[in-house]
Structure formats: C-alpha cells, structure tokens
C-alpha cells in the first residue's frame, strides 16, 4: 500500500486530478453552505444577467443564480456517477466472476449477453427505456448502471480466468474451500485493482452520460439543477447568454478530466509490472 501511495504521489497529473476530485467532493458536500443563493429562487428582476459581483456566473432565464445551481448540480452529478458506477460494478463483478470461474456454458451465455448489450448503442437504449419509465434521478442512476457493466464484467472475467489457475487457489481448494469461498474470498480480492481503476474512470463516463441525458431533457428534470439541464438553457439562449453554456461545459470538462487523471494515475501506480522494479 505504501509503495502504491508513493507511486501515485510521484505522478503530478494524478495528484492534480486527486486534488480536483477532492475539490468536487467538498463543493458537493457543502453545497448549501457555499452557494450564495437558493438554487431554485426565481428573481423576475434579474433575468439572464451576465456575470457580475452579485451573480458571479450570471443568472438564467428565470433569474436563478447560475453559480448556486451549478454547485447543487455538482452534488447531482456526483450522486449519479457513484450510484450508477456502483450498480454497474456490482453487476459486472457478479457476471464476470461467474463467467470466468465456471467457464463452459455459463461463460458462453454470459459473454453472448455482454456482446448483445455492447452491440446496442447505450444512449439509444437509455432513451428508449426512459421514454417508457419516465425520467427521474433514480431511474437515471439505475439505467446508466444497468447499461454500463459490460466492461467490468469482461475485466473481472479475464482476472478470474488467470487467477483461478494460480497455485494458491489449488492450495485453498486442497484445504477444503468451496466454490463460493474461492470466488469471493480468494479470487475476488486479488482481482480488485483493475476493477477499482475502471470504476474511477466509469464515474467520469457516467457523469458525462447523465449530462448528455439531462441536456436532451431526458435526464434530471428541472427545477432540480444539473449541469446538463443548465446547458440546455444555454443552447436555447446561446446568442444572448454565453455564460449558460460555457460554465456548465467547463464544469463537465473539469470533472471528467479529474476522474480520468486519477484513474490513469491509479492504473500506473497499481501496475504490477511497474511495481516489481520499485521493490
């Protein structure tokens, strides 16, 4: 763990990413304290005001403070990102573990299912499902989770395929461990670092997807603020209110960049091939 930490810190970009992620967490956690206005407070006297000392990122078409809405939006993004990735990772681990450990027909069926899921364009699938069940923050989290587990499943499967042939697994069986114990307490903990990396990268992807859905009006529904639905307003008022497009766009960019930097940093720090040299 120490070597890992050292390696991670040596990587400047990863450290920067870590600081950015931390910043996003703090902003989300203390949203009510940081935001100068109630994000849903409508002020008919200050509609579409450009950035000023009072409204530092301007106001929207209902006179709401964009800065405050973006701060609350960051909480939404974070929640959607983590819950969706949590769901995806859970499903991916279960399917990947069963597939890799049991092989044979179990593997074939699960992998064909993964192929089918991957062959359907995610965004269209989500749009179709949302059209049926209606958009809500929970539906968004669940549907993003249900459509983004395939990568994790493949990763976990590959890890299981190689780990199950290792001698310590044979030794554990020789000591009387059953399948479930082998899968969950012997192989799983050894296969977690790539899953962890992919989860961090997955948060960025989920946030991007949530923004896209909200932008299309099928994600987080107004008045609940989200970066995506602020962007929609930006699009509608692109000629008169640049600040409605630029700031949420930058926030999304910042977040995606932050998680990707951390994810890449973790990948390098956890790479066992690079580890050996450090010892």
């Amino acid at each position, binding site marked *: 763990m120490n070597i890992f930490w050292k390696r991670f810190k040596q990587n400047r970009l990863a450290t920067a990413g870590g600081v950015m992620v931390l910043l996003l967490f703090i902003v989300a956690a203390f949203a009510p304290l940081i935001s100068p206005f109630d994000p849903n407070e409508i002020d008919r006297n200050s509609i579409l005001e450009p950035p000023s000392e009072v409204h530092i990122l301007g106001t929207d078409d209902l006179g709401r403070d964009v800065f405050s809405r973006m701060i609350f939006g960051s909480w939404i993004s974070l929640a959607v990102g983590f819950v969706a990735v949590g769901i995806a990772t859970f499903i991916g681990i279960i399917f990947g573990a069963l597939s890799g450990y049991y092989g044979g027909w179990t593997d074939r069926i699960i992998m064909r299912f993964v192929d089918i899921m991957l062959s359907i364009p995610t965004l269209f699938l989500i749009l179709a499902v949302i059209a049926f069940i209606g958009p809500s923050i929970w539906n968004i989290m669940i549907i993003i989770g249900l459509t983004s587990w395939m990568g994790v499943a493949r990763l976990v499967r590959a890890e299981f395929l190689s780990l199950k042939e290792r001698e*310590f697994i044979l*030794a554990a069986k020789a000591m009387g461990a*059953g*399948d479930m114990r082998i899968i969950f307490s*012997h192989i799983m903990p*050894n296969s977690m670092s790539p899953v962890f990396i992919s989860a961090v990268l997955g948060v960025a992807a989920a946030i991007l997807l949530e923004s896209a859905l909200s932008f299309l009006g099928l994600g987080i529904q107004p008045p609940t603020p989200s970066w995506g639905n602020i962007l929609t307003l930006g699009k509608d008022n692109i000629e008169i209110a640049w600040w409605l497009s630029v700031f949420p766009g930058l926030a999304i960019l910042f977040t995606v960049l932050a998680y990707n930097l951390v994810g890449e940093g973790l990948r390098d720090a956890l790479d066992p091939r690079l580890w050996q040299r450090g010892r």
Partner: protein
Amino acid sequence: MIQSLLSVEDLSISFASEIKSLNTVNEVSFKAADQDFLGIVGESGCGKTLTALAIMKLLPSNAISSGRILFEGKDILAYKDKDLQKIRGSKISMIFQEPMTSLNPVFTVGNQIAEVLITHQSMSAKEAINKTIELLKVVQIPSPELRVNDYPHQMSGGMRQRVMIAMAVACKPSLLIADEPTTALDVTIQAQILELLGSLQERNRMSLLFITHDLGIVAEYASRVMVMYAGRIVEKSPVQDMFINPRHPYTIGLLESLPGKKGAKLKPIPGQVPNTESLPSGCKFRTRCRYVIEECHLKEPSLKPAGNSEHLSRCIRAMEL
C-alpha cells in the same frame, strides 16, 4: 484383511486429446496404512503430481480418471463436492511444491491458517487465531505472535512452506500429501523442512505421502518407496531393500545420479522422460536403459515380485540386476 487408510486401485489418468486418449498415469495401485511414510519418487513429468491431485479429487478439469481411490474404505471419486470439501484440509491435506505461490498474497498468513480452522472446526475467530499462533510455534516459526500478522511476501520460501505445513496439519489430518515440498528450497532449509515433516508425522500419527524427485531424501524417513516412470509404478519396496537391492534399471539410474557418495562420480540417466504421445512400445524405460534386450521391445512387463513378496519390479531382468 485390515482396511488401509488409503488404497489406490488401478488409477489411470488421461487428457482428452483429439486423436486418442493416452494414459498419462497408467494403472497405478498402492496402499498407505495408518501412520505410514510412503515415498513416491520419479523425475519431473512422471505423473507424481497428477496421482496426488487425483487423491484430492483436484485434477485439472480436462483430465479423465478411472480406477478407484478408497479413503477409509470409501471411494473418493464417487464423493459429492460438499463431502469432498469436508474431507480436504481436515482428513486429507496437501502441501505443494512452490511455497512462493501457494499462499494467497492479499491475506496475512495468520488469516489463512485461521480460515482452515474456522471452516472445519467451527472455531470462533479468536480461538482460531490463538490456535494459529500455537501452530506456528509447532512448525518452528520464530516469534509467532508477530509473524501471524505477516503477509506472505514478508516471508522467505522456507517460512512460507512452514506456514503451508501449519495450515495442512491444523486439523490433524490422517493423511498428508507433500508434493515435492522441499524442491524449491535451498539445501539447509530442505533438511529442516524434512525433519519437521518427519516429526509431525510421528507426533500427529498421520500417514505421509511424500513425493520427490530425489531418492536420497526419502531414504532416511520413508518406510516404503515407490518409483514412478512415465506414469507407471516401476518399482515398489520397503526402503532399505530398495537401496540395497534395486530391482529396476530406472531405480539404479536414480541411485547413481545421487550426489554425496565419496569418490563416486555423478551419473545422470541419459535422455529424458518421453511424453505421453511418444512412449515406446514394450517397456517404457527401454529407450534409456543400459540393460535393454530384444524382448523389452515386445511387451510391457507387469509389476511382479522380485526377490520377495514385498518387493515389486516392472523389469523382465529384475533378478539379474
């Protein structure tokens, strides 16, 4: 007849290949009594590990086995998975050749030993850890109270093999299979591990199936030895008899290749173990044998008494050797 602890009867193991399935292990039979110390000797690739894994019913999934393996009178090959899990680690245990890779890298050695105790003896976590420290003491790991929290990578190969042994004997099995437990270690450690296993065998009154490629190692401890070549038992006898009167050219070759005898030159057996696909007709050892005669090409000799009823050899010239 007294029922033996372990009785392997006509064990054959093959791997399904596209052409035909050939026996990698062929009609191996032997018995182990309570508190036995049985050595299985043969070069690498002779089928020793496969035989051991078959007894644990842990053969690779592409292996096909036939024959019977009776443990305490019941056929292991007919056991259900659940019942096998109960036996493995409690009544039959196995330690492996590579201590560096036989322990799970993400758990402390203490946890791994305790897990066995919790699984088989339904101990509480606390009891299990106390027992684990005791076990580490038994296998002579210094300051066991501290070492119990070590991860495998913090230990040397010899230490790890001791941990494996502690784990294997935690539930006092009646049969311990040790598959080349000292091969990966340096000579001084080898001797220590061997002595430890010998004393544990007596102390726990278990039967030990000791696999090695080094005939010299079994000389001191084993009561009986069987020599395997190309998946077959070629000679089987009480240990002294085998050293004094080896009755198979392969055993003679193994004895001559032993280091240590003063003045005597090391004489490795020429050639190597043929793989299953390219086994010769007749006697499987004839291609490397210096006593080979015409007849050896014709028919594979059976395992027959040579000299006395306890001493079996698979060589038509056994009595001339």
